Every structure is written in C-alpha cells, then in structure tokens.
C-alpha cells in the first residue's frame, strides 16, 4: 500500500472511529477549566465566531479548527488554525497558535491550578476572539490593511478551576506579550460557571436526555496593558454557554456573547462542533504496523 493510500485510509479511519467514541466537553468557548484531554485522545473541533456589527462596521465570520491532544494525564497540547471572512471585503487565513496546558498538582483540590503557555503567529485581521487582552480588536479597518501586520505573541494564563456540587467554576488571568509591537504586556480575564442539566445518567442510550446538556455563563474581557491598566478602552462580554452531547463522540456548543460596553460588538455568536477520537495514538500506531 502506498503512503498516500495509507493516509487516505487513515483519514477515513479517524472519521469512522470517532463514531464509537465519547466526548466530555466543557461548554466554555473562552474560559479554560482544569479538565484536560485524556491521555492519547485527540479532540478535533471546528468553531466559529460571528458578530452583529455596530454602525459602520461589517459583518464577519471567523472560523477556526482546533486539534487538542492529551499527551499525559497532566499535559494537553493544542494547535489552532484560524481564518476570517468579512462581508464586502475578503476571506483570508489569519494565522495559527500552539498552546500547552499543564496541571502541576496530581490530585483534585478545592481550587485546581493549571498553567497555560501559548505561542501565536496571527495577523491583525484575526477575529476569532478566543480571548480578549489589551484593547478591543480592530473590526473597522479593511482586511488588506490588517493582514499586513503579523503578530508574534507569547501568552500565559493562570487557570483556576473548581468543581463544587456539580458546578464548575473557573477563572483565567491572561498575560500576553506581542513581540512585533511595542505594546508592553497586555492583560485579560475570563470567568465562568456551568452545570449539567441532570446529574444522574439514564440507562438508555438517549440523545435528548437532560444529562446530555450543560449550561452556564462566561464573562470575559481585556484589562489593558502595562501602558494603561484597567477596564476602560477594551471589550467586555457576558455570554451564556450551552453544550449538547449530540452523540457519544460529538459535542455541539453555542454561545451568544453580549457586549457590555461601546468597545465590544453588540453580540458575538459562537458555535462549535467537536469530536473526540479515543486512543488516537494506539490506533495510529496499529495502522502503521506498530504494537498490536
């Protein structure tokens, strides 16, 4: 079998194996909690951020693909590929980011810290708003102007998360440094809580059982930079979040984020569809003739 054939079959295998696996996705889009990807699993997610524009702004659609892999039980790594399409303007690839999350503590505690480190190479037209730090993103300029500036940014987060009586509470504090521009260090935050709609699993295999749904709320925004710290001149959103375990492997998520000040878009709609391939490493190894 040629390598191309193997790769084609592998892609089919990935899709088909996904039909027999499960996912436990948090409903959050922006906030991270302390639950990492299970070791050896690959979670593939397609999400998008769209806006309701203010007067003089344009409607945009910013899709992104996310590949999340559990390296160990305490280390998850993730790659993002991002794009953007603006009505009456253009469609373009806006960049990529690579992130890692580490759990320093072995056991569950009342508050569970996670350390987050990310490198991103994105241009000024990026609008997925996976997090908001520093000032508000530029949604008025044309893509041709925005794409000219490429940002190489290092970002860290302190993730604190807690599970209390089936509620998950999480808070992220963001510090980012853009090496391409002299903006100082930029800061941001996000806070969230969520809960499944039912806590007891039914014995039957059902799609619309309450246990398959979870709901919550996120609040996120910027905190300025070392050149001007504070809540002003930056965007803030309050966003209800909903997740539905569509099948044993797939999760659908939705969140309308409502802008809380003039720097924010009136509404940001976020959609996400993810599926998890359990034992991805073993399947890959077996496919290429590795350990049975």
């Amino acid at each position, binding site marked *: 079998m040629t390598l191309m054939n193997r790769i084609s079959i592998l892609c089919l295998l990935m899709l088909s194996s996904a039909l027999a696996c*499960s996912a436990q996705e*948090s409903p959050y889009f922006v906030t991270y909690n302390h639950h990492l990807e299970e070791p050896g699993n690959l979670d593939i997610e397609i999400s998008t951020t769209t806006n309701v524009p203010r007067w003089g702004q344009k409607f945009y659609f910013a899709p992104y693909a996310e590949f999340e892999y559990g390296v160990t039980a305490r280390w998850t790594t993730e790659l993002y590929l991002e794009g953007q399409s603006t009505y009456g303007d253009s469609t373009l690839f806006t960049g990529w980011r690579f992130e890692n999350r580490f759990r320093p503590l072995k056991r569950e505690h009342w508050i569970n810290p996670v350390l987050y480190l990310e490198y991103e190479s994105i241009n000024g037209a990026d609008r997925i708003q996976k997090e908001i730090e520093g000032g508000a993103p530029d949604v008025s300029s044309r893509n041709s102007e925005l794409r000219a500036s490429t940002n190489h940014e290092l970002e860290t987060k302190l993730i604190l998360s807690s599970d209390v009586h089936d509620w998950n509470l999480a808070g992220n504090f963001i510090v980012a440094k853009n090496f391409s521009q002299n903006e100082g260090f930029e800061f941001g935050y996000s806070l969230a809580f969520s809960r499944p709609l039912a806590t007891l699993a039914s014995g039957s295999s059902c799609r619309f059982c309450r246990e398959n749904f979870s709901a919550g709320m996120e609040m996120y925004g910027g905190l300025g930079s070392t050149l001007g710290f504070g809540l002003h001149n930056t965007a803030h959103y309050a966003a209800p979040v909903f997740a539905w375990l569509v099948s044993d492997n797939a999760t659908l998520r939705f969140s309308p984020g409502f802008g809380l000040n003039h720097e924010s878009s009136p509404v940001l709609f976020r959609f996400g569809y993810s599926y998890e391939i359990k034992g991805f490493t073993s399947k890959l190894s077996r496919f290429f003739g590795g350990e049975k």
Partner: protein
Amino acid sequence: MKQLIIFGIVASLAAAAFGQNVSYQPDPNWLPPNQAAAKLNPLAQKSQAMPGGRKLFQRNCAECHNPDGSGMEKKHAADLQLPVVQNQSDGTLFWKITNGNPDRGMPAFSQLPELQRWQLVLFLRTLKRPL
C-alpha cells in the same frame, strides 16, 4: 515445585483467556484519605441506577479497562474484576475515579457529576467475578 510451575502456567492461561491484565499491580501510593475511603455510595440501594453506570463505563472507561472491565495490559489499566480492586470500599473507588492517577496514565473524571461517579462505582460492583 513442578506442580507450582504448572499451576502458574494454567492460572496465567486462564487469566489470558478471560482477557485479564495479569500483570496488574496496584500503585501502593494511590490511596485515598481515610475520610474519603469511608464514604458510602448514596445509590447503593438503588439498583435501577446501575444501567446508567454501565453506559458511563462504556463511554468513559472501556477504552482502557475493556468493556468487561478486565483491563488492557498495554495501557497498564487495572483488571476491575480482581479481588484486589473489588475488595476496596465504595468510597475508595469513588475517590480513585475522581482523582485519577496521572503517574499511571489514569485520568481524573471529576468532570462527571458526583452521582454519575457513584453510578460508575455501582456498576463496578457488578464486574466482580463469582467465586
């Protein structure tokens, strides 16, 4: 001595036939605090909650522990049918599901609601091999 070797071989073959992870050795450092170990399963008298536990087990655990709980050797996953597992208290099993054991590749399942973790414990009890 010869009888002992034969017994060993037969026992290993029988274990393999059952798909059992014969090499499984519990981690001596993976122990819950006394208070956690003493917790009682609030669903212990609710056998109708067990099928939900089975569903959760197939969804979250079978990938490493096998659908029958016998454990995959290459993943160092415990054979949940063994007395060394079944003799542990409900509270201990609950604590182990909640916290995981990252050193041995067992993830934490604290993202599952508390009652669902107890449902898993309820189902684990059904895996006990009859004497």
